[in-house]
């Protein structure tokens, strides 16, 4: 619990050694993204050569065009080479050689713009790296979605071959699902959680930086699938199709598994940070709701993602080492993959939803000028969703032919999730009651979150019901449902978060007029895109099809044109984002929203150390309208206060 008094964590044992600090090399010789690329290329060539060497003895590889050994080993060595090039193992080597290592708060080697392209231990740099990275992945996935909708303009006239179409569908789905797991926890979680809990650091700065630097690697490997013929399975990668598929499938398995490792590290770091690095006085009952959401999300990541990594590992060995985890004829089971995948996949859906809940719960009190209605109810809602999410995965398999006895049970557990989700709605609606709404851009996104999530949630009840699911399963209805929850929920909250926190994070205000234009075009185009897809699905169009019934062309064309408008709306955001942060650079005041959150009490952008000294938290973050409320924290507590506060929080446990 103690931050100042505790010795440096075990990760930096040599930080205070009198042996001096590590030598700072010339700019180009310092490890960074350029050395990482060199390392990756060398690693891939080495691995590919080794794979060819080993596989030469296998009749299976010799007899077919595929050499999955070489590809997988190439990717594995690529990852290692990338990390060596980045300097991830530098401190480890220094430690083994008995040299002094970098301390978590030594940022002398990381100044200037170059720090955004290096492996740094500053959680704020990692947060911004995540923000830009996630936006790039999101827009790449969005372009693929535009390509899908272009193909679906006509039921019979095709702009792509079916192979290309499935490549694009698979890349879109996988890329989006990979980035969505980190889209809020990565940028906002890493950047803001330490500040919100009054800490100068995260628990594991090296793991945090590693979790980010694995993502570019994962996305490049995923995109390399295009060069290897793509993968025909969509983002779910069902066996045995994934065992049958060509070399592009290796990209999918390695990339998704790598992303799984990245999110395990990110979640672990966030959970430990929140539990161990809260400032004195930051009791559980004063924790901002966003931090609660990050805590529950972190737990889900740590508990669910290993199953994904295991599943992907099994796919890789099935494809290379002739194991038979998922091959029925050899004693495996294709059901095993479905179970493994969805045992990760359904908690993942809530990994995507909970951060969105956290952000809107953070925005509502600020812009309604009221305390959060039922703080404990909101936290209970988050935990309820998180716990229940591990007991519902079979609802993806209602038609699969698995033991029908389990269907009533999983129908019940799935529907039970609407109770904790309903609690979040109760909190939101209660907070609205006789409020003084300020319709700023972040608030518009927060309100739209509830509008969209309402439809996403209600359609989910239809899908949880086995008879209704018989028709809706595997159709565009499902597609519309999860786009409503993920894009309409998570991404709207993400944009709300950007508009809300960018003044703090970068110190620049986004243009409000453009922000409102972005909001309204996005809101209208989003609903116009995905609302008709509920009907398209119920009228009998399965997902991921390349041809569809001619009578559905009008609806599909409407959806496609709306999707293009949605893409245009994103261009408005990119323009606003780039202009506001690079060209206009309008300085933001320290606390433009007049918010009580601890992060707003420090300068914008936050100084390197976050706080001059560890603050003492005095009150909860949502005490709006209460004239007797204490300020949220004492940023310059007199000496001795911390010791007293430490004793108090220590006894509270």
């Amino acid at each position, binding site marked *: 619990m103690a931050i100042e008094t505790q010795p440096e964590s075990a990760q930096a044992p040599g930080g205070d050694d009198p042996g001096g600090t590590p030598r700072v090399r010339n700019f180009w010789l310092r490890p960074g993204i350029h050395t990482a690329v060199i390392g990756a290329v060398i690693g891939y060539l080495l691995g590919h050569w080794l794979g060819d060497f080993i596989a030469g003895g296998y009749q299976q590889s010799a007899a077919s065009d595929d050499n999955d050994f070489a590809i997988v080993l190439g990717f594995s060595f690529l990852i290692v080479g990338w990390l060596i090039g980045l300097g991830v193992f530098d401190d480890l080597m220094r430690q083994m050689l008995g040299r002094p290592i970098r301390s978590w708060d030594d940022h002398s080697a990381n100044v200037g713009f170059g720090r955004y392209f290096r492996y740094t231990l500053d959680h704020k740099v990692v947060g911004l790296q995540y923000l830009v990275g996630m936006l790039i992945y999101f827009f790449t996935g969005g372009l693929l979605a535009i390509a899908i909708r272009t193909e679906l303009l006509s039921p019979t006239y095709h702009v792509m071959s079916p192979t290309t179409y499935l490549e694009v569908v698979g890349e879109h789905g996988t890329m989006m699902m990979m980035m969505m797991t980190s889209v809020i926890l990565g940028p906002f979680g890493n950047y803001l959680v330490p500040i919100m809990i009054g800490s100068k650091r995260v628990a594991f700065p090296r793991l945090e930086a590693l979790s980010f630097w694995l993502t570019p690697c994962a996305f490049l490997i995923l995109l390399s699938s295009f060069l290897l013929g793509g993968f025909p399975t969509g983002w779910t990668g069902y066996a045995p199709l994934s065992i049958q598929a060509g070399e592009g499938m290796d990209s999918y398995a390695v990339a998704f598994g790598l992303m799984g490792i990245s999110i395990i590290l990110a979640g672990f770091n966030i959970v430990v940070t929140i539990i161990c690095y809260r400032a004195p006085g930051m009791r559980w009952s004063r924790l901002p709701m966003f931090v609660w959401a990050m805590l529950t999300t972190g737990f889900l990541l740590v508990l669910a993602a290993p199953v994904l990594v295991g599943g992907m590992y099994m796919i890789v060995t099935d494809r290379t080492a002739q194991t038979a985890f998922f091959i029925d004829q050899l004693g495996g089971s294709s059901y095993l993959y479905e179970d493994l995948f969805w045992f990760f996949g359904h908690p993942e859906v809530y990994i995507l939803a909970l951060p969105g809940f956290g952000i809107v719960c953070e925005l509502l009190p600020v812009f309604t000028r009221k*305390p959060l209605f039922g703080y404990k109810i909101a936290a209970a809602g988050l935990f309820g969703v998180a716990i229940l999410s591990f007991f519902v995965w079979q609802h993806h398999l209602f038609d699969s032919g698995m033991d*029908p006895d389990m269907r009533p049970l999983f129908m019940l557990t799935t529907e039970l999730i609407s109770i904790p989700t309903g609690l979040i709605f109760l909190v939101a609606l209660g907070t609205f009651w006789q409020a003084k709404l300020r319709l700023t851009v972040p608030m518009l996104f927060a309100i739209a979150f509830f509008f969209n999530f309402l439809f996403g949630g209600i359609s989910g009840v239809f899908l949880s019901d086995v008879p209704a699911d018989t028709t809706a399963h595997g159709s565009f209805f499902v597609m519309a449902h999860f786009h409503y929850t993920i894009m309409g929920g998570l991404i709207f909250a993400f944009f709300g978060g950007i508009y809300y926190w960018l003044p703090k994070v970068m110190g620049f205000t986004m243009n409000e007029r453009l922000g409102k234009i972005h909001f309204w075009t996005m809101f209208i185009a989003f609903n116009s895109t995905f609302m008709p897809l509920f009907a398209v699905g119920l009228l009998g169009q399965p997902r991921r099809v390349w041809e569809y019934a001619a009578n559905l062309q009008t609806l599909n064309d409407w959806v496609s044109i709306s999707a293009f408008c949605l893409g245009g709306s994103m261009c408005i955001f990119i323009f606003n984002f780039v202009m506001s942060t690079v060209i206009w650079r309008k300085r933001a005041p320290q606390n433009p929203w007049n918010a009580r959150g601890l992060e707003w009490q420090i300068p914008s952008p936050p100084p390197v150390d976050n706080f001059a000294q560890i603050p003492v938290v005095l009150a909860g973050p949502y005490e709006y309208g209460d004239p007797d409320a204490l300020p949220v924290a004492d940023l310059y507590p007199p000496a001795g206060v911390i010791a007293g506060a430490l004793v108090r929080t220590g006894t509270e446990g």
Partner: protein
Amino acid sequence: MAAESPTAAGTRVDGRRDGFWLLVLWIVLSVIGCLLVALVLGPHLPPGDQSSSAASQQTDFTVLGTIATPVVLGVLLYIGWALTFWRQKPGDETDAAPIHGSTRISAIWIVSTSVIVLALAVYGTIELITPAGAGAGQGPQPIWKPAGTTTSSLTSWTPGSSNILQVQVIGQQWAWTYRYPQFGGFETTQLMLPVGEPVQFNVTSLDVIHSFWAYTLGVKADANPGLNNVAYTTPEHTGYFQVRCSELCGIWHGSMYDTGEVLSVPAFLKWTQTTKVQLAAVTKILPPYALTYDPTNIPAGKINTALGLTSAGGGYYNPADPEQP
């Protein structure tokens, strides 16, 4: 639900009784909305009423839609009300009244959502069990069978008897074929069913996972390689119906569709007799009827090699001779 006031009276300085009017509006809108959904929209909801399972799904959609309507309308009305009346006036920099919560409102909310959810789960279970699994694939050992049917004979079928009609659905990349074991075991690309007779679909696959979706019949069952997946329905009206694959199965997944037809019983019997004769020569060289087939008998790997295919080309991992990974 949402419309109750946390403060006792629910009145404001300007005298508007928010809680009262929200409640009144909500009730009025809900009654209108529910009636529209249940009576006007409901009978037109997919998948229609061509079979017993489709009809039960349509009822289910209607019931769920009717229950969802007040919830959706309540939340939307409330948000709309907030956006209309609870805005901060220009120049007003003060905060609103601090309300930290209300045990009464929270309790009402939790109890009402729990009741709705539990009722839905009970209703869903009943709707799942009574129409013989609601058309969903139940795996090799189905537990909810159509009332009064048996599987007494796999080699003959007479209309009106308790012996259920067996239709085997075989998925492969990228087409459906159908086998009728009770008519000599011929395998055809046409799916024909008699009206008014319960049908047992035995769905299996030869290569990867497909999903047999007879849309207006309200039947969906995954076709898994090496596994039998049973689904039941009873067609109630003659006419055509769509068959699609609803599980991604490779590059031509989007083109894996078909049209089936529900015929009158005499027309169905006539069709089986002519088809049986037509296909007699083919039936002889088919593997004997079984619930699953060994896909390794299919020399797809060699076809792939001949065609120069490297991606998903209809091949399958061959356990004896792993030349096609």
